[in-house]
């Protein structure tokens, strides 16, 4: 019950965040008031972090991190500086000094109680650094962010607390992001690999998942696909990490699989990535990228993506080039396909799907052949050649022969007379096909069930309460049993009397 309650609250809070961001009426509030609200939020978060640290309950730190997105848009240096007062008891604290240095502010020491002996909770320390990191990122000053991240990471690494994991993962994310902005891909690899090793040894699931994802991104950005593949093969990705990280990881795995022609595996990963990603407008970029890749992979597997996908407002504009592409593949029109590639070349290159799309050419030809195979009982190779805009009849013959071998069409070729003879269409229900399709679906349902079971939250010590209940129930049962027994005896007696 407690879990549900707090969940409800979270929902409300999230909603409120969005409201604040959206409603123009809120803007009428004076900046001081907003600053006060934000400061309050931050202070409240300190409370949650304390709770997380004391009760060893990662849920609270997750919750704080979830609010980071909303908070981020309202941060100002003044707010951070005043939050520093609340966080650190002394302005001489190392981290406080660091934050002030990068915000180019002086400590407002007048309001602080000087008590050097008190130490700050590591969670709160890291949270403050994280806030500053996010603020610097939004300022768009990559160099400053980079330098700050370097120093913040040193502080992070000086701690070794499991309650810090979620925050640490986030901090590593912004660290890697900062390095990426300054194009330092190869430089940070040894660091990330080292952190991965430490995280694995410490059973730090969150950081491990995050670092693996960051490494994959790093490898893919520098086109070192074989290394990325090795990491996926050898690295053991923790399945129970935060869902958003899992979604990102699955997306990268899908990409690697697609490059290595493992289309069905890639498709599965991408479906997982899309389902696990948050379905809000803040994740639109990720979802669009995943959908783009998925469309191409479906086409490569010989499937046609559903049309409704391209109508959804979130994807409509982003997927426009891909819709044209799908249309060309669907009708097997080689010239239109080439034109589409020409037209959107830059967009495809930017999305990193260009090389995959080039592989589609053979699919276009195959679809074209299949269309002809379905429509004509007999068609001359010359006609096929003209329809598909192939260079020679000879090529057409080889291509048709290959299509037959690959099982794309059911036909034979008469070489002397130069035509393709279609075979009667096979009754699909006499084959293994329906069986396989059913198996796929059942497998999916079972996997869904198992994953749902795994995803459920089991509050600690909850089973003790249940045990108590069970004991009570048993006792009641016992009483009931004795009563019945007694009753039975009485009843029996009564019956006797009756007889």
């Amino acid at each position, binding site marked *: 019950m407690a879990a549900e309650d707090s969940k409800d609250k979270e929902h409300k809070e999230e909603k409120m965040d969005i409201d604040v961001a959206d409603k123009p009426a809120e803007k009428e509030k004076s900046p001081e008031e907003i600053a006060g609200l934000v400061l309050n939020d931050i202070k409240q978060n300190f409370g949650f972090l304390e709770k997380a640290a004391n009760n060893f309950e990662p849920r609270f730190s997750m919750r704080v991190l979830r609010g980071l997105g909303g908070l981020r848009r309202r941060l100002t240096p003044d707010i951070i500086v005043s939050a520093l007062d609340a966080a650190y008891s002394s302005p001489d604290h190392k981290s406080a000094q660091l934050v002030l240095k990068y915000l180019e502010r002086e400590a407002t020491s007048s309001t602080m109680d000087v008590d050097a002996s008190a130490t700050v909770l590591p969670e709160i320390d890291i949270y403050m650094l994280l806030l500053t990191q996010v603020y610097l990122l939004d300022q768009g000053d990559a160099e400053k962010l980079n330098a700050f991240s370097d120093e913040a990471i040193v502080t992070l690494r000086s701690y070794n607390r499991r309650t810090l994991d979620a925050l640490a993962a986030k901090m590593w994310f912004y660290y890697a992001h900062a390095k990426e902005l300054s194009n330092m891909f190869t430089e940070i690899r040894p660091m990330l690999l080292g952190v991965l090793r430490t995280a694995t040894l410490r059973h730090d699931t969150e950081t491990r998942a995050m670092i693996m994802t960051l490494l994959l991104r790093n490898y893919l950005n520098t086109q070192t696909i074989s290394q990325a593949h090795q990491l996926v093969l050898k690295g053991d990705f923790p399945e129970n990490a935060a869902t958003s990280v899992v979604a990102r990881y699955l997306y990268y795995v899908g990409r690697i699989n697609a490059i*290595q*022609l493992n289309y069905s595996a890639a498709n599965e990963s991408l479906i997982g990535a899309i389902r696990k990603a948050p379905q809000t407008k803040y994740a639109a970029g990720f979802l669009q990228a995943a959908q783009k890749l998925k469309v191409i992979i479906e086409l490569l597997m010989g499937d046609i993506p559903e049309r409704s996908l391209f109508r959804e407002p979130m994807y409509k504009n982003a997927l426009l080039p891909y819709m044209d592409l799908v249309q060309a593949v669907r009708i097997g029109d080689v010239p239109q396909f080439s034109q589409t590639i020409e037209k959107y070349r830059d967009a495809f290159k930017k999305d990193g799907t260009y090389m995959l799309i080039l592989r589609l*050419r053979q699919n276009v030809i195959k679809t074209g052949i299949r269309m002809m195979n379905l429509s004509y009982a007999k068609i001359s190779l010359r006609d096929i050649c003209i329809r598909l805009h192939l260079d020679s009849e000879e090529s057409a013959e080889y*291509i048709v022969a290959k299509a037959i071998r690959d099982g794309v069409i059911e036909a034979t070729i008469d070489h002397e007379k130069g035509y393709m003879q279609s075979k009667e269409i096979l009754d699909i229900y006499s084959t293994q096909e329906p069986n396989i399709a059913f198996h796929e679906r059942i497998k999916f349902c*079972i996997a869904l069930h198992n994953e749902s079971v795994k995803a459920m939250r089991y509050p600690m010590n909850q089973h003790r309460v249940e045990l108590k209940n069970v004991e009570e129930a048993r006792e009641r049962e016992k009483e009931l049993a004795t009563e019945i027994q007694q009753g039975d005896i009485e009843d029996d007696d009564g019956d006797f009397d009756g007889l």
Partner: protein
Amino acid sequence: MSSHTLEARAHELAAAFSAKDYEKCATLLPPLKLMLAQLNILVPLPSSDPSLLVLARDILEIGALTSIFLRDDVLFSRYVAQLSSFYALKDKLSPPSVNEKKLIALRLLLLLSRNDIAEFHTDLETLEDEADTDQYIRYPVMLERWLMEGSYDKVWKATTQRSEVPAEEFAIFADILVDTIRSEIATCSEKAYPSLPLANAQHLLFFSDESELKDFIEQRGWTVENGRIYFPQEEPDALQNGVAMESIIENTLGYARELETIV
């Protein structure tokens, strides 16, 4: 061991290579690599001396090309793997390598001839822009595209006509590739034609004379009657049914197990 002796030996190697004395190159290379290892530049580090790295790169490139001419695939792959870390440092090494694209293209061609398409695409993904523009890399890329769509006649032309091949090293793979497309065409033909006249088959399979075709027919186990080839028709046999039954049983048992855990 100084860098001067290394330079002198490298010159000797380059001279032997341009004289096309590949055997001599092969004997010169191992001691040279040993020297490179002793100077600690066999694997480039950011701290290494750039001029030495250029020297090392050129030596390894000659090694790679030599191994192609001597048809040592394994050695070639190893050289290319070593070179890739040099190519990653491109901006620091000048002059830039003239052989880089050629070697990458050759490696792609090697993968293609081994039918290792997944690896082929993995390598290709690293070169996005050059795939269309570079004359060397274009060659294996086009070959792969034709092979995949089934335009075997174009592959045949590209591998056998001198004018189509971008450099002499590429011609070495011609034999392997022709073998590959021949066996591809043969398997396609088995499925696509009920029967085929001998003369046409010879043309389809790119054989120049009949005896070669005869050998090939024997290898594939086709039957010839009245000047026509008859392909062995595969029957939908009982064995396949047995496999299907087995998979059904396996699936059902799997469902039962899963249900057990749910209930």
